[in-house]
C-alpha cells in the first residue's frame, strides 16, 4: 500500500533535532550539550536530576543519547535499540498551559494536529534508585507513544518546590513516525542539500548497535565490572563522607563549600548505575543480589542529591 505521507517533505533525523532545539531555544530554553557520560535516560543527566533540586528557576533543553545495555538487539530488531536519543526539556517551574506549548512544538516539526489523533494518557514516572517520581502522561500520536510528559514531585527523596515540568521526546520514534517507516534503521538521518544523497540511521549507527550489544551481552568482563562498581562506589562514598565535614554551617571557608565536588560524586554514582546495567545485561546479577545492589546505588544517588541541595542552600545563603 502506498504511504499517505509525503516522505520527501518529512524532516530528516538531524532536522528533527535542529527544529526542536530551535523551538525550545526560542521559548527561552538554554541549550545544553549532551552529557558526556553513560546514562540510561536524559533524566539522569545532572542538568535534570540535580537542577530540578532547590529553588532556582531553569529552562533547559538538550539531546541525550541514552544507553540501556539490556535493550540491545544486535541491530536485528527494527524497533529496539541499545542506545536511543532523547530530547529532554526541563521547565522549572512549568509555565501555564505548557501542554499547548508542547503541541506547538509538534506543529513545528511538521505534525498537522487536525490530521492526527492525539491523546494525553496517564503515565506516572518513577525512578526508585534516584528517589524520584512524578505524575504525567505518555503522549499518544495515532497510537504511538512519542513523548513522556512529567511533573516532577520528588527527587533524591526530597519534595520539590518549585516543581519542574519534564518533556522527553523519543527522537527515533518521532522520526520513524514522520517518515512512516517500519524500521528505525531506515530513518533518513541527513540529506545532502547539494546532491540529495541520503544517509540512513542504519548507516550512521548500526555498527554501534551490533558491537555494543555484543559487548553488553557477550564480552563485558564480569569480574572487572564488579571491580569497577566497587571502585566507583568506594570513591563516591568517600566523597559523601567528606561532604558531611565540608558542607556545614560552621564552615567559614565559602570557597571550600563552593568548590566541593558534588558533581564529581554524582558522576561516580552514574558510573555505578551504568556498570550495574551492564552486569544486569550480562545476566550476572541474581535476583537475590539485585535488590541489594540497587539499594547500594540508591544510597549513592540519593546521598549526592542531598548534599547538592545542601551545598546550594549554603552557597545561596552566603
Amino acid at each position, binding site marked *: 500500500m502506498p504511504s499517505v505521507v509525503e516522505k520527501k517533505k518529512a524532516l530528516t533525523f538531524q532536522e528533527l533535532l535542529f527544529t526542536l532545539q530551535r523551538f525550545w531555544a526560542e521559548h527561552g530554553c538554554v541549550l545544553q550539550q549532551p552529557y558526556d557520560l553513560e546514562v540510561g535516560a536524559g533524566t539522569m543527566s545532572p542538568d535534570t536530576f540535580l537542577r530540578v533540586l532547590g529553588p532556582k528557576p531553569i529552562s533547559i533543553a538538550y539531546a541525550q543519547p541514552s544507553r540501556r545495555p539490556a535493550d540491545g538487539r544486535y541491530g536485528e530488531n527494527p524497533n529496539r535499540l541499545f542506545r536511543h536519543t532523547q530530547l529532554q526539556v526541563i521547565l522549572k517551574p512549568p509555565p501555564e498551559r505548557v501542554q499547548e506549548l508542547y503541541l506547538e512544538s509538534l506543529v513545528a516539526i511538521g505534525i498537522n494536529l487536525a490530521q492526527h489523533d*492525539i491523546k494525553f494518557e496517564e503515565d506516572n514516572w518513577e525512578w526508585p534508585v534516584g528517589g524520584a517520581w512524578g*505524575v504525567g502522561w505518555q503522549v499518544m500520536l495515532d497510537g504511538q507513544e512519542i513523548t513522556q510528559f512529567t511533573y516532577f514531585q520528588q527527587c533524591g527523596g526530597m519534595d520539590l518546590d518549585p516543581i519542574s515540568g519534564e518533556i522527553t521526546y523519543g527522537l527515533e520514534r518521532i522520526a520513524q513516525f514522520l517518515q512512516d517507516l517500519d524500521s528505525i534503521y531506515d530513518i533518513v538521518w541527513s540529506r545532502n542539500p547539494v546532491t540529495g544523497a541520503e544517509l540512513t540511521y542504519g548507516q550512521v549507527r548500526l555498527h554501534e548497535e551490533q558491537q555494543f550489544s555484543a559487548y553488553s551481552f557477550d564480552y563485558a568482563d564480569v569480574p572487572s565490572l564488579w571491580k569497577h562498581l566497587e571502585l566507583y562506589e568506594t570513591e563516591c562514598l568517600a566523597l559523601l563522607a567528606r561532604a558531611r565535614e565540608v558542607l556545614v554551617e560552621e564552615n567559614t571557608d565559602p570557597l571550600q563549600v563552593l568548590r566541593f565536588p558534588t558533581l564529581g560524586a554524582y558522576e561516580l554514582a552514574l558510573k555505578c548505575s551504568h556498570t550495574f546495567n551492564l552486569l544486569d545485561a550480562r545476566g550476572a546479577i541474581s535476583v537475590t543480589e539485585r535488590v541489594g545492589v540497587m539499594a547500594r546505588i540508591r544510597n549513592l544517588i540519593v546521598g549526592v542529591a542531598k548534599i547538592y541541595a545542601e551545598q546550594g542552600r549554603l552557597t545561596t545563603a552566603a
Partner: protein
Amino acid sequence: MPDFLLEIGLEEVPARMLASAEAELLKRTLALLMREQLIGAEPAAHSYSTPRRLAVIIRDVLAQQPDITEETTGPAVKIAFKDGAPTPAAEAFARKSGVAVSDLKTISTPKGDYLAATTLKRGRSAAEVFAAELPKEIAAIYWAKNMYWRPGKPERFVRPVLWLACLLGEEIVPVTFAGKTAGRATYGHRVLSTGDAFEIQTPDSYLAQLEGEYVLADVELRRQKIRKALDKVTRAVPNARWREDEALVDAVTHLTEWPDVLLGNFEPAYLELPEEVLVTVMRDHQKYFAVEDVNGKLAPHFLTVTNIALTDENAPIIRQGNERVLRARFNDARFFWEFDQRTPLAERVKLLDNVTFQKDLGSYAKKSERVRSLVGVLAALAISRDALLDAPAIEAAATLAKTDLTTELVKEFTELQGIIGGLYARSQGLPATVADAIYDQYLPASAGDAIPRSAEGCILGLADRIDTIVNMFALGMEPTGSKDPFALRRAANAVVKILAESTLPLTLSDILTAAAPTPEVNSKVKAFFNERIDFYLREARGQAYDVVKAAMAAGTDDLRDLVARAEAVTAVRGSEDFLAVSAAFKRMKNILTQAHAKGDIASSVVDHDLLLDPAEKLLAVTASAAASAMEELQKERNYGEALRVIAALRPSIDGFFDKVIVMSPEDDIRANRLALLNRTLEDLSRIADFSEIVTAG
C-alpha cells in the same frame, strides 16, 4: 429560580479516576446546597466530565438563604437588673445579641425569669455561600494520585487547574480555587475548536455551547456515540462484529471529548499467533477493540477510538500510523513467541532457581516443589474418595506451572502468565490435561471468573494458593485492614469458590491439613477463611447475613454442603412456621444461657421418666423423631425436606412453652427440662443455628 453551573477545567485527568470524581463533585455540591438551605428536597442535578473538565449543573437554586429569627436566652432577671437598672450582665447580653437593653424581653422558665433577645439571622446570598464554601468542597475531592504544581505548594490536585467557570443563572459566581477565579469562559476541543476561550451564556446553554465546540460533556452520550460508531464501522467487514469489552468502552469514553471510531487492518499471517496474545496487545497496550467473525474467531482487523472527528483526509493518515504501531508490536510478540519456544518448558524448570517468589520463601523452584508435593497429597485423597483424576498429569502441571515466568512473552505481557504457559505446553505437545491445568491455574482471578475447567486444574489452583496463604501467614504477612500486598484475600476467595463450585470431594480442612501449618497458623488461617466464606456466601451467593451466620454456625468445612444448607434455609425462611420455630430456638438458647449463668449446666441426656407434663412428653417424642428423620434426609442432602420437618415441630414447641415452666424449683425436674431443650437444639442445629435467624420485623 436560577440554575447553577460549576465547571473545573483541568489538564488531562487520568481516565480511571474520572467517573468517581465526577460523582463526588456532584455529591459534595448537593450536600453543600442542602446544608445551606439553598435547594428543595428533590433537586434536579446532573454531572458531566471529559478528560479536561468536571462539571455539575443544579436546577432551581435559591438565590438567597431565608432569614432566620432566633430567640436566645440570657442571664436571669435577678442578675440582670439591680434596683431596676441594668447590670453589666444585661448590657453584655444585649451587646452580644446586637439589640438595645430596652429591646430585651423577659421569659418565664421553670428555673425562674430570664432575659431573652430576638435576633434576626440574615440569610446569605447563594453567591456568598458558594464563594465561601465551594473551594473547600473542590479541594476535598479524593484522587488516587495527587500533585503539586504551583510554587509554594498551596494545594494538591489531580492535575493543574486551568480555569473555573461558575454561574448562577446569568451571573458569574467568583469562586476561587488553585489561584483561579471563576468567570464564564471555557474552552472547546484542543484541536477541533479554535483554542480560544468562549463565554458560557447560562447553565442551560452549557452543553449545547460545548457541543458547538466539539466537546460532548455527557459521559453516557459519549459512551453511546462510541458504541454506535463501533457498530457502524464494523459493518464494513462482512459477517464480523467487534468483541464486546465493557471496561475498554469505559476507558476510551474517559479518554475522549469528541470520539470517533476507525477501522484498521493487520496482516492475516499474524493470526497464527495465539489469540490471547493478539487480543492483549490490542486491548491492554493499544486500547483497540478486537474484531471477530460470527463464530467468535479473531479477524485481521481492529478498531481504535479517536479523540477527533475522522474525515476522508485524516482517516488514512491516522489508520496508517496505528497499523504501523500494531505491526511493530505484533512483530515483537512473534519474535518472543518463537524465541521462547527454543527453550521448552521442561528445560525452564531449573531456571526457576533464579526467580524469587518471596525473599524468605525462596525461589519459584522451591515453591513449585512444595506445590507439586501438595497436589500429590490432594490428588491421592480425592482418588480415595472415588474422584476420577489423572494424578501424574497434575504433578506434571505443578512442575511446569511457573516456568512461563522465565519466558520473554510473560516478561512483556505479565497479565498473561499461566495462559502463556498453557499455550506453550500445548504447542510443545504436552497432554491437554497438563496444558489446560497450567492455562487455568490463576482462575478465578476475580469473583466474576469461572473456576478451572478440569478437576486437575482445580487441584493445581487450590494447592498453589493454599501454599502461598499458609506460608505468608507463617511469616506474619497476613492482610491487615486495607493492606493486602500479596493479594491473599483474592487467593482465599479463589480457594473458597473452587471448593464450593467444583465437584472435587475435598474440604477446607483437607487442603489446610495437606499444607501442614503449625497449630497457631492453622487457627489464624481458619479465621481468615471464615471471613472469605462469609464474603462468598453474601456477595457471590446473595445470602442474607443472618442466614450466612446461621448456616456457618453448623460447620464451614464442606463448602458445597454449606452452600446447600444456606440456600435451603433461605428458601424456607419466609414461612410463618419456620420463623416461629426460629424464635422458639432463640428462646431455648436464652433459657439455657441464663440457666448456665446460674450454675445449671444442661446435659443432653433426657430422662423420660422425669417428663411430667404431656406437653413436654410430646416435644421429647416429636423432636427425637424429627432428629432421626433429619439424619436420613441430611445424608441425601435433602435440606429442603429436613427444614420442613423442623418447621412441622412448631405446634409441639409452642405447646411446650405454653404449658411448661422450665425453671422448676425441683432440681431434677429443672435439670431434665434443660436437658430436653439442650438435646432438641443440638439435634436440630446441624443444618444451621436457627437462633441466628432474624425474626422480628
